[in-house]
């Protein structure tokens, strides 16, 4: 890996990690409460 690749890696990687962690946390915090079993829509 060249020095430029490592530098790009060090700039991009933390930003990407923060975005993913933020997206996951928000998705977990904002997800709707569970519905009654009869009304569960199992759509892939």
């Amino acid at each position, binding site marked *: 890996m060249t020095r430029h690749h490592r530098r790009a890696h060090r700039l991009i*990687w933390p930003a990407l990690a923060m975005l993913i962690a933020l997206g996951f946390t928000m998705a*977990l915090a904002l997800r709707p409460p569970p519905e009654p079993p009869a009304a569960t829509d199992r759509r*892939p």
Partner: protein
Amino acid sequence: MSVGYRAVQWSRDKLVYDGILVATTALYILAFAAIAWRMHPPKNLPDAIDVWIRAFGTAAFLMLSAILCIGPLARLDRRFLRLLHNRRHFGVLTFLVALAHVVLMLEWFRVQGVLHTLPADFLTFGDYLKFIGFPFKTLGLAALSIMFIMAATSHDFWLAFLRPPVWKALHMTVYAAYGLVVLHVALGLMQYEHTPLIPLMLIGSLTVVGTLHLMAGWREWAVDRGAPAGIDGWIAVGPPASIPDKGARIVASPDGERIAVFRDGNEFGALTNLCAHQNGPIGEGRIIDGCITCPWHGYQYRLADGCAPPPFTERLATYRLRLNGGLLEVDPRPLPPGTPASIRCPQEAL
């Protein structure tokens, strides 16, 4: 390149690696389906297909997580280098498992006669402005597209055609694919399945991948800070005896590329740390059969001039070395690839 290295042919090691890979993947998918089937017996065909969709989907995600761990693991512990050698096969298999996940999803829609409604999942543009309700299938499709490009360009032909820096940059998009897959699961399945297993799988993967990268990154950063150069620009490497025989010490100038200073008995040679094949860290390799051998794929170069032994034609940039006051020093200005530059140290200096 090493005379013993076969780029295309299937060696025994590759067959064993691929055999274990395919068997483990098949075992995981079958075990997942069997457990899911037992815990929630499917009531109809779509339910049964759904079990397989999840089995292949989670397999692809865990495989992608494992692929991202191989690089830092190999950097932290040389025993993991064996996993690095055939990482491309791992990537291609991951793409195929992810593709099977998509095909099963299409089948799920088809058996219910609602395949025509699928485009609406991608083309309802108002949903792209939402966070919860974002078209998560688009995220999965984008990740699959990246994985397809990587699988399609994984052969050495594309490596030679695109050149190592471009090829490496292209294959670093695997991190974007990973991020897209995490969000595909978090905004998709995790929104309507309230089992704690899904968040646990995502948190576990993010923690392991993140921690390993931080550990490896910290070690690399320490090397990249570089050694201070003397008045004439030369960098101290250390006493000749401090370099292990048949091994190397890696040094870096504050703004330059890394340099691998190898020792073979009383002969010392400095080369760029970038292998001509995939820019692998050649300084982490060893001298085998008289040639410097890259730890990643076995490409070989002569210590004296950085040239691959005939009939191979790869050449590496070399650097001038000198012995100054009992210390080995290197000039960080590279010589043209293939320039003889090794020196011999007197016995009393070793």
